[in-house]
């Protein structure tokens, strides 16, 4: 097979992936809106638009299912894109927001906000971003200072993670009323999503993703290595900081909405990379699509699998994510070939 027909095949595969991804996104959103302890039919939802959401079904749709489904789609996309970006910038495919301390940083910020009586709005999202950004910069700067290998960088992330979680736990110990929220927050869940929390996070996440989609070539050039990227005229320090900042906005906002959802940022970019390759102009949009669909499906499963009981979505995602993580380790023979 010559190189042009190989290229055609690859392009065809990408088109199929986009089509499958969009269909999955639509199906998962529909399932998310219609399924639950009280099932809603599409016709019931359409009808509720006409009567101003005055029926019980209409109210469930408007105040429960819609914000929850939207939040799961948005958080999934945000965490998956954040993971893909972090993996590219620090050249380690084992890195993800939950593994290198980004989520914990945001988690600590949200816990502090809760202790201070800030439960939603733009302030919560911004504080979560600051926490996430501080954590990722701490790991990145420490790694650079000690000349950490890719494996050591993960260990640094684990250390920062533990430290930040210990700080969060300390806050919960000294201010017990924060702990009421904290248990669900630690595993991640969407039951407490409200529009006041959803809207600012959605705006920040959307802006960050749009900016990242315009910087895909920069992300690819960074993977050529520090010296080669600089020799192509890139200010690598500035670009790395910008990428980490945008990744922190994504992870921070997602954490402010849903708590510490683990593994999305690891699983989704990995799965997409295996099928579509590492080219950022494909990796980021496809991660956004499949990340959103994955979290939305997991959340629908969390609500319906043991109905009328609901389990936090983070539990389902961890059940799927942990074995996948081990699978990556085995395939990569301990991490050596992963980065």
């Amino acid at each position: 097979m010559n190189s042009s027909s190989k290229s055609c095949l690859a392009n065809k595969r990408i088109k199929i992936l986009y089509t499958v991804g969009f269909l999955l996104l639509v199906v998962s959103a529909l399932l998310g809106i219609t399924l639950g302890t009280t099932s809603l039919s599409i016709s019931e939802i359409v009808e509720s638009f006409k009567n101003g959401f005055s029926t019980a079904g209409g109210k469930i749709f408007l105040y429960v299912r819609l914000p929850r489904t939207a939040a799961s789609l948005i958080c999934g996309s945000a965490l998956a894109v954040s993971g893909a970006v972090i993996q590219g910038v620090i050249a380690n495919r084992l890195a993800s927001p939950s593994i290198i301390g980004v989520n914990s940083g945001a988690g600590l910020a949200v816990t502090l906000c809760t202790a201070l009586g800030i439960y939603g709005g733009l302030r919560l999202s911004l504080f979560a971003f600051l926490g996430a950004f501080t954590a990722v910069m701490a790991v990145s700067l420490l790694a650079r200072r000690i000349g950490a290998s890719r494996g050591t960088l993960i260990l640094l992330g684990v250390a920062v993670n533990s430290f930040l979680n210990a700080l969060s736990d300390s806050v919960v110990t000294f201010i017990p009323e924060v702990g009421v929220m904290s248990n669900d927050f630690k595993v991640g869940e969407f039951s407490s999503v409200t529009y006041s929390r959803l809207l600012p996070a959605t705006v920040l996440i959307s802006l960050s993703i749009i900016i990242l989609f315009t910087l895909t070539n920069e992300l690819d050039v960074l993977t050529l290595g520090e010296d080669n990227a600089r020799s192509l005229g890139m200010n690598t320090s500035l670009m790395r900081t910008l990428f980490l900042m945008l990744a922190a906005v994504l992870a921070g906002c997602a954490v402010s909405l849903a708590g510490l959802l683990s593994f999305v940022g690891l699983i989704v970019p990995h799965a997409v990379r295996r099928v579509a390759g590492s080219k950022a102009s494909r990796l980021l949009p496809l991660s956004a699509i499949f990340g959103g669909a994955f979290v939305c499906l997991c959340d629908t499963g969390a609500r319906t699998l043991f109905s009328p009981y609901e389990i936090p979505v983070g539990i389902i995602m961890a059940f799927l994510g942990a074995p996948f993580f081990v699978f990556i380790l085995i395939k990569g023979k301990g991490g050596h070939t992963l980065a």
Partner: protein
Amino acid sequence: MLELKNICAGYGKRQILKDVSIFFDKSELVTVIGPNGSGKSTMLKAAMGIIPLISGEVCIDGENTNNFSRQQTAQKIAYLSQGKNVPDMTVSQLCLHGRFPHLSYPRRYTEKDKSIVSSALKQLGISALANRPLSSLSGGMRQNAYIALSLAQDTDYILLDEPTSYLDISHQLELMKTVKTLAKQGKGVVAVLHDLPLAFAFSDRIAVMKDGEIIATGPPKEIYRQPLIREVFGVELDYLEQEKSYRYKYKL
């Protein structure tokens, strides 16, 4: 002309280069030789602006590179580092990034960029590899792919840091022929090499470095006549003239 004027540079507080002055012309292949730690790679990085200068200046055609942005410098000088990543991309995707310094935000590669890449691949005879992933290539092919990237960058000068590392001898010779051809076509090529016979056989000019200083520059025959090689490397070279060719080899 690319000129390094009295440059001192290093890493952090550790100064490596001590008052280095040298020039590189277009259409010539200059190899830089010297023992490990003599500052060869550091000199290329300083010329490219990858590490900051402590003092001195780098000029391109008489103009100080401090007056250029990083992007403008990258439009004039291409640099291939010693340790190259093997990113998950095809040869043509890699080479397209050679056009990176020529684009402004939001950087989207155009048909013109793709045609420049296609010419670069053709020039190096690796068009058939265009859609092959870098990870599937041998060391020699990969090195050629990176050289195609610097060709696509379309600069007057190409700096190559140990381009023959990890290559078997036939690939080393192939690569040096390619590099020599680029010089003949008008590029100023500077290559750091460890293999002395290779450097002496292909270079138009040789620069010898020791302890962060350039201790000699000149055509291979001139450098060969001096007792420098024995002093710097502790080995001797033999020059063998044959009917229509010549070669250098280590004296054992």
